[in-house]
């Protein structure tokens, strides 16, 4: 091997070593910084406010679920009133996984909606109302029972 070639290879080896160290250090610094930020995000999910909001959210939909179950049986077809999209979503989130939905609103045995009330008996100020297509014991409309929750309005919205 001549001297020129040997020096070129030595320079190449030095370049590789230096570049490797620089790239490795820069990348580890980036990874480490972002990992610390990630650990903070993980801890934020366990803060008191987050836990309290999650608990309220759970209790609110549980409350609506119990009221809806007091109004409909599993073999009755259900439609949810779509006049108020917010109420529709709240009811869907409460009963969506177990209710038997009708193909059309007019074909449903029961149409469910939310109604605002003041005083006890509501879930944060709302009760589930059922309108029956065929009167049940002479009743065409009934209000849900079995659960209540203090407060007003839907719980704080979880992150979308």
């Amino acid at each position, binding site marked *: 091997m001549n001297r020129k070639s040997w020096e070129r290879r030595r320079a190449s080896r030095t370049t590789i070593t230096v570049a490797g160290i620089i790239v490795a250090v820069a990348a580890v610094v980036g990874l480490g910084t972002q990992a610390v930020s990630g650990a903070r995000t993980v801890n934020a999910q366990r803060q008191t406010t987050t836990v309290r909001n999650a608990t309220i959210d759970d209790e609110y939909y549980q409350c609506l679920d119990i009221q809806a179950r007091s109004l409909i049986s599993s073999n009755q077809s259900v439609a949810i009133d779509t006049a108020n999209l917010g109420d529709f979503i709240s009811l869907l989130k409460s009963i969506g996984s177990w209710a038997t939905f009708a193909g059309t*609103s007019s074909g449903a045995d029961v149409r469910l909606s939310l109604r605002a009330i003041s005083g006890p008996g509501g879930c944060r100020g709302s009760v589930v109302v059922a309108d029956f297509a065929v009167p049940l014991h002479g009743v065409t409309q009934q209000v849900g029972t079995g659960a209540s929750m203090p407060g007003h309005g839907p719980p704080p919205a*979880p992150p979308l």
Partner: protein
Amino acid sequence: MTTVSATIVAMVVLSAAGLLPTLAVVGLRWITFPLAPLAGAVIAALAATGFVAVGGTFMVWFVSLAAVVAGVTALAWRKWPNRRPWAVEPGSGMSSPTGYRLFGALGALGIVAACAWCLRDLSTPTVGFDARALWLTRSGWFLHSHQQVLTTLRAPTLVLGQSAYPPLVSAAGAVAWSVTGNHTLRLGVVVVALLNTCALATAAFAIVEFARRFSWRLSASEPRSHQRDPINLAAAAPMVAGLVAAVLLIFISFGITEPFMTNGYADPIWSLAALGAVVYGLQMSGGQSEYGVVAILVLTAGMAKNEGVVTAAVLIVLIALRQLSIQFADRANHPESRRWWWRGPIAVAVAELAAVGAWPVVMRAIGARGQSSPLSTPSQWVSRARSTYDGFVPYLHVLLWAVPIAVVGGLLLSRVRSRSRAANDWWGWAGLASGLLAVAGALIVGTSAIEPWLATTVHRVTEFPALTGWWIVAMWVVVASGAPAEAARQRTARPDREDLPDPVTAPVTAPVAGPAPDSVRVPSV
């Protein structure tokens, strides 16, 4: 049944359904454990597709499909005994010195510990908005009668078009509810969080595995006097760097995906599974076991959410192209290889595309809600593209880190990267771009008001490109940490040891090492 015991039962059932196919396509490796429940979830998603398309009940479909897959696996092992996971012979390419195996175990332990630390978030009883309104609501639908599920998916009065989204998360939840009798959203959320974590652990372990192989390769080419050490210290740098990077990636991933990682959303699972497919299919050196991992992960991503369908489809094509390019290069060195060498990768890609595309086709066939998506006019595309770019930028700051590192690494460390047998970095970037363009394309050509759409989704839909960027950085950490050892090796290079076969991906019948002429150096494809 309590949530904890129900979660254990649900994960055992999903793992049992997925274990045999995972063993068949991946073999017995550390990642077999997190991949088995993911494969079970894929079977659940296929069961949901069959149930909606044909009839019967969801659980009969799930049990039948799991039994069929297990039967096919058993038949394959009977016909090809050398494919059995326990059939690896001592001295084959699968074995490595104890020190290196121990490092693999340490890596697995580090990843599990980091995941467990992050999963403490499950102590907060959060159920995400979409999880409650859509993903776990549909779990209940799958447990209804066939006629009822059709009615529910079609009924215009239910308004939500998203109920036609791919079924994997809902189907996994339905299995959990059915086998435990615990129909709580909490159980669904915990099971989905564990599946997310399985996908993350699989992707993170790729870094440990890659680093371990690189260290072994560097060590194996050292002079014989150095090889007497259980682990060559200079060559061990990539292994240590890989372990550290893999653990850091767990925290990074939870940081990027929380709170959705632990509240039942479907975005983390498609993002993490697609990420794993990029790592194993487009960054690692390739091999039969690697492509088995890829198959499970692309199906997981493609059956979890619409963005996952598009991204998985592009990744399937990219990975098939890479496989074909590897086989083409290999064929140039081995002219005696099969004439129809290209058929395997193409057949696998077509099968994967068919599986991923099945649910959207079924939704269209049954006339489900939300199937017609109007497109914005081309004149709106410019402003929508601008808004999309502005929306994405704050979530993709990783690119400011990853691009310079990749450029410097590509210019100065390409020889080291080639030595590590990692794929050319362009493949990883192509994978990142595919996910980015899939999501950006949907936002640009869609008709929903772009600003509110971005405000409510951008942090979730950018999870995949952001995570992939960090994995690209991590790969460079491992490659760069091997640079000093590689430079030292060049000083005392032994040409006869340049081309050791890959310790894991080489055919099991191949010798561990053998003289290879310089002309067969494998390019970094």
